[in-house]
C-alpha cells in the first residue's frame, strides 16, 4: 500500500508542476495559434470540411448531414473564451500530466526504478517519443478547421502506435538478445507501415504557415513537458520511499556489494 501511496504522491507533484509549466508554455505558443485557426474554421464553414463552431447553427437541410457527422452538438456546453477556457485547459493539462506520470512511474518501477533524476529524464524523453513523436509521424498535430479521418479509427491507430512504440523502446533498452532487438524494430516500424487513417482531402482554409508554427510549437512544448515530468518524477521517487519494503539504503548497500 505504501508503494501505491508513494507513486500517487510522486505522480501528483510531478504532474502538477509539469502540467502547470506546460500550460504556461502553451498559452504563449500553441493556444494563440489555435484561436487564430478557429477564426478560419468559423469563416470557412462547410468548405473547411468540418465545423467546430460553437454558435453558427447550420442552415436546416443543406449542410446538416455534413456538420452533424462531426458529432458536435451545437448546444453542448463549452467554457467561455478567456479566463474560463484557460482554467479548463490548465486543469486538463494537469490531469493528463498526472495520468502520464502514474503510467510512467508504474512502468519504471516494474523495470527496476528510475534511479534518480537522470533516469527519470531518459524515461521522460522515451515518453515524448512514445506519446508525441511516434503517433505524430502518422497523425500530425491538428489545428481546428483542418480535415481529418473519422475520430474512432484515428484514436485506435494512435493508441496502437503508442503501445507498439513503448514496447519497442522497452525491448531495446531492457533486453540484450538480437532476436528481441529485431522484434523491437518491427514494433517501432509496423504502425507506420500500416499507416494512419487519412482524410479524403487535405484542403483547408487554415494557412500552411500558421500550421507549421503550430506543429513546431506542439513538439517543442511536449518535449520540454516530458523532460521536466520525467526528471521531477525520478527525483521525487528517490526522495520519498517511506514505508516501502525495500528501502533505498538497502538497495544501495546491495548494489555496493
Amino acid at each position, binding site marked *: *500500500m505504501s*508503494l*501505491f501511496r508513494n*507513486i*500517487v504522491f510522486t*505522480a501528483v507533484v510531478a504532474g502538477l508542476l509539469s502540467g502547470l509549466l*506546460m500550460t504556461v508554455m*502553451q498559452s504563449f505558443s*500553441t*493556444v494563440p495559434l*489555435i484561436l487564430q485557426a478557429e477564426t478560419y474554421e468559423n469563416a470557412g464553414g462547410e468548405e473547411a470540411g*468540418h465545423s*467546430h463552431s460553437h454558435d453558427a447553427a447550420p442552415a436546416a437541410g443543406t449542410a446538416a448531414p455534413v456538420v452533424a457527422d*462531426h*458529432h*458536435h*452538438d451545437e448546444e*453542448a*456546453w*463549452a*467554457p467561455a473564451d478567456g479566463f474560463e*477556457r484557460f482554467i*479548463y*485547459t490548465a*486543469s*486538463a*493539462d494537469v*490531469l*493528463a500530466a*498526472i*495520468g*502520464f*506520470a*502514474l*503510467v*510512467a512511474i*508504474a*512502468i519504471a*518501477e*516494474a523495470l527496476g526504478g528510475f534511479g534518480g533524476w537522470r533516469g527519470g529524464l531518459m524515461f521522460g524523453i522515451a515518453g515524448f517519443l512514445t506519446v*508525441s513523436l511516434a*503517433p*505524430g509521424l502518422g*497523425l500530425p*498535430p*491538428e*489545428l*481546428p478547421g483542418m480535415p*481529418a479521418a473519422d*475520430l474512432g479509427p*484515428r*484514436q485506435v491507430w*494512435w*493508441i496502437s502506435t503508442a503501445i507498439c512504440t513503448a514496447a519497442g523502446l522497452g525491448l531495446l533498452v531492457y533486453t540484450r538478445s538480437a532476436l528481441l532487438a529485431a522484434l523491437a524494430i518491427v514494433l517501432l516500424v509496423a504502425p507506420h507501415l500500416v499507416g494512419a487513417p487519412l482524410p479524403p482531402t487535405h484542403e483547408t482554409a487554415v494557412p500552411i504557415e500558421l500550421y507549421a508554427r503550430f506543429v513546431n510549437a*506542439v513538439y517543442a*512544448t*511536449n518535449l520540454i513537458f516530458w523532460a521536466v515530468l520525467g526528471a521531477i518524477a525520478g527525483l521525487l521517487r528517490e526522495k520519498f520511499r517511506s514505508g516501502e*519494503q*525495500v528501502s533505498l539504503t538497502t538497495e544501495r548497500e*546491495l548494489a555496493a556489494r
Partner: protein
Amino acid sequence: MVTNSAAGAVSVSTSKIIPLGMSALLGLFMVGFVGFSHLEVVHNAAHDTRHSLAFPCH
C-alpha cells in the same frame, strides 16, 4: 547468496504487481478521460489541451 537475492527480487516484484497495476490503470483512465473521451462536454473543456498534446481531436 546470489540465489537468495534473486528469489527475494522475484517475491518483491510479485508484491508490487497490484500497486503498480493500479497506478498504471488509474493513469490510463485519467489520460483516456482527458484525451479520448467522446463526451462533447469533456471534449470542449479539454479542447486546447487535446490539440496541444496532438491527441486525435474532433
